[in-house]
C-alpha cells in the first residue's frame, strides 16, 4: 500500500466536505411572514439560529402592531384618534399616541407646517377610498382647512388640546412608521439581530440579510416595476412618499393623496421623496414634509436632522440627493 493514499483521499474528502458546507451555508434559518394590516401589506423577515425563536418573535411583533393599529388608526371606532376627533376639546391619550403626536408636532414645527397632523377633515373630503373620487369644490376645501395647522393642537403630557371642536387629527403620516419601529423593538427583545419589517414600503432594516447587507430598491415614480436606485443599509429606516400609489386623474391632471397644508390641494413639487434615517416614524413624517416642500426646501429640512439622508425626485423628474446619499447608494 502506498503511504500517500490516505493523504490524497483525505484531502479530497475534506474538499467535498467544504463544498457541502458551502452549499448548505451554515445553520442560519430565515422566516418570512406577511399580513394585511394598516391598510397595506406588512412583511416581517427575520434570520437566526432557531426557527422556533424567530416564529415566536414574529408572532409577538405582529400582535404588537395590531394592538397599536387599534389605538392609532382613524378607521377604528374605539381608537384614540377617533375619540379625539369626536370630542370638542381633545382629551387624554395613550402614551403611544402621545409619542406619535410629539414626533409629528416636532416635524410640523421644523417644516413650518409642511407636515400637518390636523388634515383629517381634508382627507375625508377628498375620499381617496371611494371608487370614483372627484376634486372637491374650493369652498369645501376651505371649510375643511379651517382651524388646521401645527398650532391647532397642543400636547401637554398625555393630554391633547384641540383649538377647534371640528378638528380631526390624522396620524397616517407618522403612525405606520411608529408601529414598524415598535415591531422592531419587539424583535430586539427576542434577541433577533437580523430582520426587516416592511409596511407597504416603509421599513426598518435591522442588522443584515443572511448573506449580505440589506439591499433596498427604491421604486421609480414613473416606471411601473422600475427601480430608481438601490441602497445598502444596516440598522436604518427607509421610507418613500410618492404620488404614484394613490391617485386619480381629472381633466388631464393627476390628483394624489399627499396634500399641501397651505392649499388643501395635492402638493406639486415632487414625484417622490425617499428618506434614510434612524426611525421609521421620523422617516415617515420627513418624507411627507419633503414631498410637500419640494427639492430645495426639502433638502434644507433634511439637513436639520443629523444622520438623515434622502433622494428627491422633483416634479420635472430631476434627481436631488442629499450630500451623504452616495454613502448608501449601491447602483445608480
Amino acid at each position, binding site marked *: 500500500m*502506498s*503511504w*500517500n*493514499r490516505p*493523504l*490524497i*483521499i483525505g484531502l*479530497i*474528502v475534506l*474538499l*467535498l466536505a467544504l*463544498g457541502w458546507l458551502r*452549499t448548505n451555508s451554515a445553520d442560519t434559518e430565515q422566516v*418570512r411572514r*406577511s*399580513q*394585511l394590516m394598516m*391598510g*397595506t*401589506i406588512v*412583511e416581517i*423577515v427575520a434570520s437566526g439560529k432557531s426557527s422556533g425563536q424567530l416564529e415566536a418573535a414574529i408572532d409577538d411583533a405582529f400582535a404588537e402592531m395590531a394592538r397599536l393599529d387599534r389605538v392609532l388608526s382613524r378607521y377604528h371606532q374605539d381608537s384614540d384618534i377617533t375619540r379625539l376627533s369626536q370630542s370638542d376639546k381633545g382629551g387624554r391619550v395613550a402614551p403611544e399616541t402621545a409619542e406619535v403626536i410629539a414626533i409629528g408636532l416636532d416635524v410640523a414645527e421644523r417644516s413650518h407646517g409642511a407636515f400637518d397632523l390636523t388634515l383629517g377633515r381634508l382627507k375625508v373630503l377628498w375620499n*381617496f*377610498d*371611494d*371608487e370614483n373620487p372627484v376634486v372637491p369644490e374650493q369652498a369645501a376645501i376651505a371649510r375643511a382647512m379651517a382651524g388646521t395647522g401645527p398650532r391647532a393642537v397642543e400636547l401637554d403630557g398625555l393630554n391633547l388640546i384641540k383649538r377647534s371642536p371640528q378638528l380631526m387629527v390624522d396620524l397616517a403620516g407618522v403612525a405606520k412608521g411608529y408601529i414598524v419601529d415598535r415591531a422592531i423593538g419587539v424583535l430586539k427583545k427576542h434577541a433577533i439581530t437580523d430582520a*426587516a419589517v*416592511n409596511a*407597504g*414600503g*416603509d*421599513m426598518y*432594516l435591522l442588522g443584515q*440579510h443572511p*448573506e449580505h447587507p*440589506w*439591499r*433596498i*430598491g*427604491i*421604486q421609480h415614480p414613473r416606471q*411601473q*416595476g422600475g*427601480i430608481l436606485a*438601490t441602497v445598502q443599509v444596516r440598522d436604518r429606516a*427607509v*421610507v*418613500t412618499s*410618492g404620488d*404614484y*400609489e*394613490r391617485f386619480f386623474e381629472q381633466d388631464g391632471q393627476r390628483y394624489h393623496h399627499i396634500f399641501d397644508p397651505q392649499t388643501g390641494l395635492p402638493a406639486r413639487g415632487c414625484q417622490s421623496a*425617499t428618506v434614510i434615517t434612524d426611525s421609521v416614524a421620523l422617516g415617515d413624517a420627513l418624507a411627507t414634509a419633503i414631498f410637500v416642500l419640494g427639492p430645495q426646501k426639502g433638502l434644507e429640512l433634511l439637513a436639520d436632522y443629523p444622520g438623515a439622508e434622502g433622494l428627491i425626485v422633483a416634479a420635472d423628474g430631476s434627481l436631488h440627493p442629499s450630500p451623504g446619499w452616495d454613502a448608501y447608494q449601491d*447602483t445608480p
Partner: protein
Amino acid sequence: MKTPWQIMTKGDWLIVLMLLGIALVGIAWLAVAPTGTRVIVTSGGETCFVADLDRPTSIDLDGPLGKTHLVIDEQGAYVTGSPCPRKICIAMGPAKRAGDLLACVPNRIMVRIEGPAGEDAPYDLLSR
C-alpha cells in the same frame, strides 16, 4: 526518491477520479436544480391557492367583497379583475421574483412569490 504523485497506484488514481466525478456531478446538479418558484395566495389569512410560477393559469379568488381574478403567465402573477373600489391591486402590476407581494387589501387577498431569491436579485425589499 519518488514524489507522492509518482508512487500513486492505478487504484489510487481510479478513486481520485471517481471522487472528482461525484463532486462535479453534484455541483452541476446544484447549478441546474429547479428553482421551484411558487405563487402562494391567502384569503383572510388562510392559504387558498398555490401554483408554480412557470405554469400559466388563471383563477377567481373569493374574498369578502367578491372575486379577485389572478393571472399567472410569462409576465408573472398579477391581478386583472377586482371588486375593490380603487383597483390598486390591478395597478400594482406583476409579481415575479421571490419575495414579491401583491394584495387587494379591501378584499383581503394576498399573493406572495416564494422561492430562492438568488444572489443576482437586484434588491431584497422595495421601498415605494
